[in-house]
């Protein structure tokens, strides 16, 4: 089977998976309505207001959000159909809470999440690969054992707690002790005062960039450290595996020096599965990090899921779920293709 056929088959399968996710979302987020008979409109307006509204006004309110009061089975089918059409035409509807289009709400948060997740992933990937290679050259050494222990420690660390500790030390105690000279902000993405004053400043853009980096640093470190353990262990184990292969023995036998064997022959082959993992990571980037974003009060998608969930704002949550699913599926696909391109031994089938 050729590449073309493989791509077509995978595309059909991916489409079916997206359809499955979309259908699943519909029922998942309407569970409270289906089981508990709670409509989002009930949460939006008080019981008193509801009684005082005219029939038409109430009807209009329901219609505005694509809902039906006291739905029967036909209403459900109608709502499901409308939902399907909307999802596949990219119309995610209005947020119940902010009453703004969901897509606008998501777009305003997406850059923050991508910035945070992107930088922290890059930090942990680079650190993981670098230290993994250093250590794999000499497995079982003191350096190796302590690095593995450290990685296991990071693996069992709750990242949100690490974030809280970083905040406590570098955003509270250090600024307190140095009189506010050194230190990081307690939360948020950008400071409003600086943003306002920077607008009139010729060097404003620089200030804003600096301020964003200032806010970004602690959450980036927390997430970067959190991801590091996994990449390190994966890289190390892969490379140790590869180093037992016959071609490494051959390379050594023909008298290449150890560095060349490690980097030219070992690392290149050990990077293959790593590429898959990295591609998958980038697929889940927009997933955000709900816990870390909550700790650092970061204006991102992860925290938005959490905030929307508790007010039954399901247009937002279902849109995020669908986007995450699509990117994850695509990333999976890209990873598989990439693997084939990088490793000529792989045949599609």
């Amino acid at each position, binding site marked *: 089977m050729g590449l073309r056929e493989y791509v077509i088959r995978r595309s059909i399968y991916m489409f079916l998976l997206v359809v499955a996710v979309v259908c699943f979302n519909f029922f998942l987020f309407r569970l409270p309505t289906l089981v508990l008979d709670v409509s989002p409109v009930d949460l939006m307006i008080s019981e008193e207001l509801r009684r005082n509204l005219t029939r038409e006004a109430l009807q209009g309110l329901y219609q505005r959000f694509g809902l039906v009061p006291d739905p029967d089975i036909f209403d459900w089918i109608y709502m499901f159909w409308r939902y399907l059409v909307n999802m596949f035409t990219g119309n995610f509807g209005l947020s119940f809470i902010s009453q703004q289009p969901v897509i606008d709400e998501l777009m305003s948060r997406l850059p923050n999440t991508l910035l945070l997740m992107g930088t922290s992933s890059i930090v942990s990937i680079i650190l993981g690969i670098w230290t993994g290679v250093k250590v794999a050259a000499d497995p079982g050494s003191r350096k190796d054992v302590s690095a593995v222990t450290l990685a*296991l420690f990071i693996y069992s660390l709750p990242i949100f707690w690490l974030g809280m500790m970083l905040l406590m030390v570098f955003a*509270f105690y250090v600024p307190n002790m140095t009189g506010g000279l050194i230190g990081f902000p307690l939360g948020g993405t950008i400071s409003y005062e600086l943003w306002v004053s920077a607008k009139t400043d010729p060097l404003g853009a620089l200030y804003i960039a600096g301020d964003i980096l200032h806010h970004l640093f602690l959450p980036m470190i927390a997430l970067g450290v959190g991801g590091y353990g996994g990449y390190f262990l994966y890289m190390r184990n892969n490379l140790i595996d590869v180093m037992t292969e016959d071609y490494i023995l051959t390379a050594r036998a023909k008298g290449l020096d150890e560095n060349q064997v490690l980097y030219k022959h070992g690392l290149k082959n050990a990077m293959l599965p790593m590429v898959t993992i990295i591609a998958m990571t980038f697929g889940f980037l927009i997933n955000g990090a709900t816990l870390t974003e909550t700790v650092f009060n970061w204006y991102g998608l992860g925290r938005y899921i959490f905030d929307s969930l508790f007010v039954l704002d399901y247009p937002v949550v279902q849109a995020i779920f669908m986007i*995450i699913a699509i990117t994850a599926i695509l990333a999976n696909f890209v990873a598989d293709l990439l693997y084939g391109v990088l490793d000529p031994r792989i045949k599609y089938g």
Partner: protein
Amino acid sequence: MSDSKSSSWKDSNWYVSLTGFWKEYRKHKIGILGIIVLFLFVGMAFAAPWLATHDPAPGKKVAPSFLAPEWMAVFDPEGVLTDEYMPDPQLTNEPTFRTFGNSSKFSYDHFTGAGNDGRVNMTWEHKAGDRMNWAPPNPMSQYPDSEDFVIFMQNFTWPFEGLPSDVNITFTYSVSLTGTFATEENSGLMFKTYIWLIDSSGDWQRVYRSFPPYSSEFQTRKIDLNFFDLNNAWGGMVEDDGVQEDPTDELTVAVGLAPTDNFRYHLGETPSLNYTGSVTLTVEEVSLVAYGDYFGVLGTTDKGADAWSQLVYGSRISLTIGILATALSTAVGVIVGLTAGYFGGKTDEILMRVVDFLLVIPGLPLMMVLAAFLGPTIENIIVVIAILGWTGTSRLIRSQVMAEKNKAYVESARAIGASDTYIIFRHILPNVTPILFADITLGVVAAILSESGLAFLGLTDPNEPSWGRMLADAQGTGGFSNGAWWVVVFPGLMITILSLAFTFVGHTLDQVLNPRLRER
């Protein structure tokens, strides 16, 4: 099986040679460490009722908010210590009595009650028409309405140059009535029991007044002093710019019984002309706990609950959820993996598509959604974590089974007519089990971390203490902004240490049992 190393335990089934396994396992220091720590945590979970010093309910206030752990008082010699300050709260010895006004109306005595606790009786007798001395009406007065009353007193010394952060007085008493007092409906309004704090300048600060109904059974009142009472009573003893208002650091706690204004005139009647009888106040306990800046083993939380007790009980939640959720997800994962791997074809296809589906749904958000919708009870949290946890196990088992099922011994078992179930459970499962152990222990780590994450987001049983919830409380109420680093550090440390112990054990099991890594 292999021929040359047939004596080695590695080539036999894992359960045949537990000693061999142990010999291999104990070479790994971190594995041993992990097991020891695990035992400590399990012991803590079982011994929680004995280890905990207070009620572990997160909303149960036992002291002011954000008090520091007691051991931190070492660094602060001036700090106020939390303690019982009454010299004799159980009234074992006779206290000092004093009557005011017409002393012939009052009598008092001290006796030993049940359980060798001391008790104090104070009796007010009244004959119809007896003359009473009434104080001029003054709503701001700290004294009783009547100038005739009786008190008993205890003194204590306040050695600190600082106010207590909070004071609780526990007062256990009963009231027995005779004569008209026992028969009249409104007799409870005719007298009151008071508690005063009297400083060495002679200022009285009334901190408690009793209200009817009264009972001859003992009842306990817990009196939480408000800030003004506390400030008035203690303020004079604290040096301000080198000046101390009160001459000494002595404070007197007085408990009294006195007639009220209602006895003079009540609803158009004059009870003092009609009543004949007696009121006896029996006091069993008067204790005064002054809270300092320090409390308990680990201080208090934002709600004034004891952090140590919550921390101890939190181990139960983490262990229960971690182990049960993993047991559930492993069971599902093994069954799915065995079925998919052994039967292959359509079954495999369908099951693996379900796994694919679950892998593209974002994990933590889905757990949040399910936990929020199902209600965050412990059972639901277990189920929710298990729903997402089994996919990895099933993939692992499936790949192992696929490798295993084409081996000769399975062929031969099938040739002699063994059923599928028999082959799966008797031949294949024992051979894929070793690889499962590491997966299980690492699954527990993931479950513990998920649980604490969900609890951090508020998705936890509201009445149960949990480490994630303690962190959430600390975060939500600005724990460290109040300087209370201990509410942030210790719960997180517990999560880390427990999951680190499981990680160490899992890593070691992986090293020992995973055939891929064995020869290293």
